[in-house]
């Protein structure tokens, strides 16, 4: 997919694990894992907002578009 999810980089920068993020944003570890590995087909605004709030970032920090 041309949309890149940079959750791994953000977590690394914040020295946070996926489990810790899952607890903070109240989203299952399984779903966050789907997002992290780029297997998600769509992301809800509520999920995006929760992640941005927890990681203190902008949606653009989390997602990027890669030209094919």
């Amino acid at each position, binding site marked *: 997919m041309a949309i890149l999810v940079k959750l791994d980089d953000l977590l690394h920068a914040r020295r946070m694990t996926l489990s810790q993020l899952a607890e903070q944003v109240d989203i299952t570890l399984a779903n966050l894992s*789907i997002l992290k590995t780029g297997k*998600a*087909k*769509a*992301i*809800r605004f509520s999920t995006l907002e929760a992640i941005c709030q927890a990681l203190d970032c902008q949606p653009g920090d989390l997602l990027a578009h890669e030209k094919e």
Partner: protein
Amino acid sequence: MNPRPDILSTTRLVLRGLTGLNILLGAGIAVLLSTSFAAAPWLQKALGAQPEQMTGMRLVMLVGLAGIPLAHRMLTRLSTMVETVRDGDPFIPENAARLQDIAWALLWIEVLKLAVGAVSAATPFAIDPGFSLDGWLAVLLLFVLARVFALGTTLRADLEGTV
């Protein structure tokens, strides 16, 4: 022990029974049709039919035979759908296609009823084809349901990848 009857198991059994009966009916009609050629006088006497009614009777038997694979298609598709409900995941694209198959089969069965009506009107062999608006409404309903099912499965597939 579960005091509630397992509706799905009962439905599965009923569908299997109907599928078997349908095959038997087909075999019966085929035997009758063959007998109407091989031993026409005997069959006329046995059924109390007039000789001029035999052509109409044979045509109705042919139409009946044509309906057997259609009914078989409907029953087996419905059986498979019931199996998917038992397995816990009926909202799959294959079931939308099966529902559409059932709708087409029912449409052709209604057309065959018209054919029986035409034979009945054109020959001395009078038989009630069982005309009813309900059958045609059921066809429409099934086509609409198949479409709704197809859209539903697409929506669910979209939701499955949503986080």
